[in-house]
Each structure stands twice: as C-alpha cells, then as structure tokens.
C-alpha cells in the first residue's frame, strides 16, 4: 500500500490473516498497538510466541497441555477413573464438561469432526490415538460427546463402529442439547442432563 511504512504494512498484513479480520479491522488493531506502550506490545508478542512454544499435546488424551506437563493435569490426576473415556471434538468441550463436575473419568480430544466438505475424514482426527488407548485394555466405557449436529453424529457413528468390538460399552450423550448447537455454548444443566441420559448406540 502506498504511503505505508514497512513495519506498519507488515503488522496489518499479519493481523488480516486472522479469521474474521478484514483489512479495515487489521488497520485499526495495528494503530492501536502503535499507540500502546512498548511493554504492552512486548507482552502481546510474548503471548503469541508462547502459545506455540509453551503449549503441547497430551500424549494420552491429545488435549492441549503446558509444555513439560505430560500427561496433562487431568490424565495424571490419580483420582480420575481410568476406565472411562469421554470423547469430545475440541479442548473447549473438555472445559465445558469439567464445569459440570458430572464426569470423573478421562477425556479424548479429536480436534475436529468428520466433515467431507472440509476434507476431514476419520484419519485426520485423533482416532488412531484413541484406538491405541482402547487396545491397551482396561477401558469399560467410552462416552461419545461429539456435538449433536450432523458432523458430530457422523463422527460418533464412525467411532461406535470401530470401537464396538473393543469396549464393553460405547455410549452417546443424549439429545436435549440444542440441535445444531456447539457443546461449548451449552448451559450446565443441559450438559448434566445429557451426560446422565447417555445411551448405547445401535449398530
């Protein structure tokens, strides 16, 4: 862009790569940072770098964890029931279910759901890691807590199919969650009910 000095143009370009941020918003953010104190700018930069350097994936449940803390806090908590796995799509879904205090087992985070239009099949999700956990034995129940929309149901159906012969009980959280909604936006009561009302998947 004419009239823009290089450092400003560069930050605008970086901001506009973020989802939902167009050129105009990127410009506003850039001039905001420019006016802020050097400390604030450093702190923002440090936070950005830290999210890549200090966040890792738990080798058990695939949830995000702090670098050096592996297994993650939940997986290394001796009070958690090892025989129960709750499968969710995203790290935020773990937080949502943890808020209810209703589930005392451990999680498995898929990092997505089956969605052919996005080119996401089961092999693009953390399904191999889940199969490996189950193959090790000692798992009594897998609760499929993917979102209650088409993609979440497709994922649950796939997992029920491949897990069925390895686990005594594969259950699906009950409807009652708003159809088409995301788990992370559900209120606690709805989540508690859907966990209590989980059902076996018919195959």
């Amino acid at each position, binding site marked *: 862009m004419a009239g823009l000095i290089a450092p400003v143009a560069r930050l605008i370009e970086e901001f506009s790569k973020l989802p939902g941020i167009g050129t*105009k918003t990127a410009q506003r953010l850039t001039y905001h940072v420019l006016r802020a104190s050097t400390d604030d700018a450093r702190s923002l930069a440090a936070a950005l770098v830290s999210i890549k350097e200090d966040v890792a994936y738990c080798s058990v449940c695939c949830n995000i964890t702090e670098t050096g803390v592996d297994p993650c806090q939940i997986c290394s908590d001796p009070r958690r029931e090892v025989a129960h796995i709750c499968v969710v799509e995203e790290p935020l879904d773990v937080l949502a279910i943890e808020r209810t205090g209703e589930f005392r087992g451990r999680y498995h985070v898929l990092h997505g759901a089956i969605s052919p239009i996005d080119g996401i099949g089961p092999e693009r999700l953390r399904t191999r890691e889940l199969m490996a956990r189950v193959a090790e034995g000692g798992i009594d129940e897998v609760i499929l807590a993917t979102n209650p929309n088409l993609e979440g149901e497709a994922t649950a159906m796939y997992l029920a199919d491949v897990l069925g012969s390895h686990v005594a009980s594969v259950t699906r959280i009950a409807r009652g969650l708003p159809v088409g909604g995301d788990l992370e936006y559900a209120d606690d009561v709805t989540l508690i009910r859907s966990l209590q009302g989980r059902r076996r998947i018919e195959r």
Partner: protein
Amino acid sequence: MALRAAPRVDTGKHLTRLALENFRSYASAELTPDPGLTVVAGPNGIGKTNLLEAIHATIVGRSHRAGVEADLVRHGTPFARVRLDLGGGTGAGGSSVELVVPGPEPMPGIRKRLTINGVPRRTSALTDVARVVLFRPEEMLLLVGSPSERRRFLDGIVGQRDRRAARDLVDVARVVTQRNALLRAIRAEEAPLDALAFWDEQLAQLGARVMVARLEVLRELNERIVPLHDAVATDTERGSDVSLTYLDGLKEAWADRADPGERMPGEGELAAAYRRRIADVRQKEAWNGVSLVGPQRDDLRAGLDARDVASHASRGQQRTIILAMKLAETDLLGIDGPRPVVLLDDVFSELDPDRAARLSDLIAGRGQVIVTTADPGTLEAARSREAAIWRIVDGNLEREA
C-alpha cells in the same frame, strides 16, 4: 387496473412497522404499512424490492436473492438490522422481530442473530408469529423454468408451516452437500465407499420426512387450486381441471395407484424406498461424484386437463395457473398460523389488465398486501382506493399525504 384495499375488518395481527438500518441501499428507513393495501411506488432500481426482501428474509430466515448474506449489508457498514413490529388484531400484545446480519467485515461479536421480543430464537420459531408470501415477477416462469424454482415454491410453504420440517429442509441440504463432497473423495480414491453409510441413512430419513411434508402441502394445494383457477381464469379458461403432481426419483409404483388415498406413502415406507434406491445407484454416484437420489432432485409438474402445462399450455394459461398456485399458497399458510403478509413485487406489470384486475380483487380479501410498482396506472388505481402510498425519495421512504 383494479387495485382495491381490503375491507376494514379485523385482519388479525399484521405488520405495523418495518425499520431498516444499513440494509442494502438504505442507511435508515421506516415504513408503517396499512393493515390492508400499501403501495410502494417509484422507478426501477431505486430499492423497492429491497423493502420486500427485508420483510421476506426476516420471516423465512434467508434472502431470496442474495448470493452471500453479507450482500444485504449496506456498503462500508459493519451490519444490517431489520425490525418488524407486528400488532393490531384482536389478540393481545404485539411482537417484535429483529434480524441482524453481519457485513463482510463485521465488528467483533456481531453474528447473524434473530430475536423475537428481545429473545434470541431460531427462524423456525417464527411459524407462530409471522408468515409471508412473496410473489416475484420471475415466478411467472415458474412452470417452465428450472426445477429448483418449483422446489423453492413448495419448500417455502413447507418451511413456514412446520418447525420440524423447516429444520429438516436445512439439514437435508447439508447432508447432500456433505454427501457430494464424500462422493467426490470416493471418486478420487481418497475415502472408502463404506464411509457413506451414515450419510445414506440421514438422506433416507430426512429425505422421507421432507417428501412427506411436500406431499402433504401438494395435497392441500390440489384441494384448493381448481376454484382459485376458475376465479382468476379468462372465460375460455374457466372450468378446466388443474392438478399438481410430485415427481420423485424413487421408481416406486405409488403414483400409479388408483386410489388417491393410497398414493400418499408414509414416512417409513418412503425411507425404505430411499434406502433401496440409494443402494441401486451407489456405484453410479461414486463415478459421478454427486448424489443422484434425494429431495434435492425432485420436481413438481402442473397438469391442465390431464396435459402437461410446461409443454402444452400457452403463456396466458400458465400465468393463470401460477396465480392460482400463489393464491393457494396464501390460503394454505393462513389456515394453521398467522395470516401471511402478501408481498407483490411489481407483478401487475407482467399481467394483462383483466387478469391483473381479478388478481387484485382476489388478493384484497386476503389480508395485508404490500405492492411495489413502477407503473403509473397501477399507482393511479391504488390512489383512488384508499391504499397507503409510499415513495422512495433520496433513499428515504415518504408517505404520500
């Protein structure tokens, strides 16, 4: 031209106010329509259709002509807002419906949002609050144009009458999109054929539900269409038998059953038929990379005295049938919910004076009507009949005294 205002009887709840903010060409505009007839007059290209689009899109949940939703937002603004106030009638209390649509560069936290009396709701919740019939000039080609237009006609009725069906229509469209993507991946040998199982079953179940809903609407349209056709028809057209038939790709024998009562298959029967048909075409679908069965491929055919209208009827005969279909739509939406607001987008200019006169007589008895026109004749006729006349001046709406 005989544009006539509705008789001043209780018309039930109606639209008392439309307020726009950064919607299409309007920075800010307000229309307070008459409970009977309102005419918005002005030359073409001045934003008349935008008003009807705002009302229609808010009630049915999406625009009939915007490629992307952000097109609804006035250039350079972060979001558009449409507010509909409904009131009047004998029922106590009014309702207020508000739609917010984010622009191409929305502010943080602005998402598409519909609220009814301030509470966020799904569009399907509107079936008990407001309904709408939009009649566009392009619909004069409904019977010879693409099948998607005829499905849109049917689904517009289905979706407004039944919340579950409205959700099913959205879901089945998503299932078909996902299934087509998967079929393309299968064709490219990037996914196994058995990954289809889930989507096949969804298509069978949702397809069956959508088809049952469409068949039911078609049955009720057929019950009404002959007398409505007679009412709109010219002398020579009167007395004809008009019927609408559903064309599905299921290759079952229902359509040939003698007893019309038996011709209406149930949901379970249809889902089973879908499963059979999907299995039949699976290999062909994998080669083509596209779904070959489902409600997204069905069609609607009109018959006039047992002959196919698309190939045998004159343009005039087709128009008479289409007007009868739109009147039947209006009546059907009104029997089990709020009487629809009828929006006529410059359709009188498409009609000869006799048909236009009969249409305006028929429509006037059916509640609230908002008409756009660029035609001075239509406007003159409306002016002499106590219609509320509005004009668009410099992007603002002004009521003619």
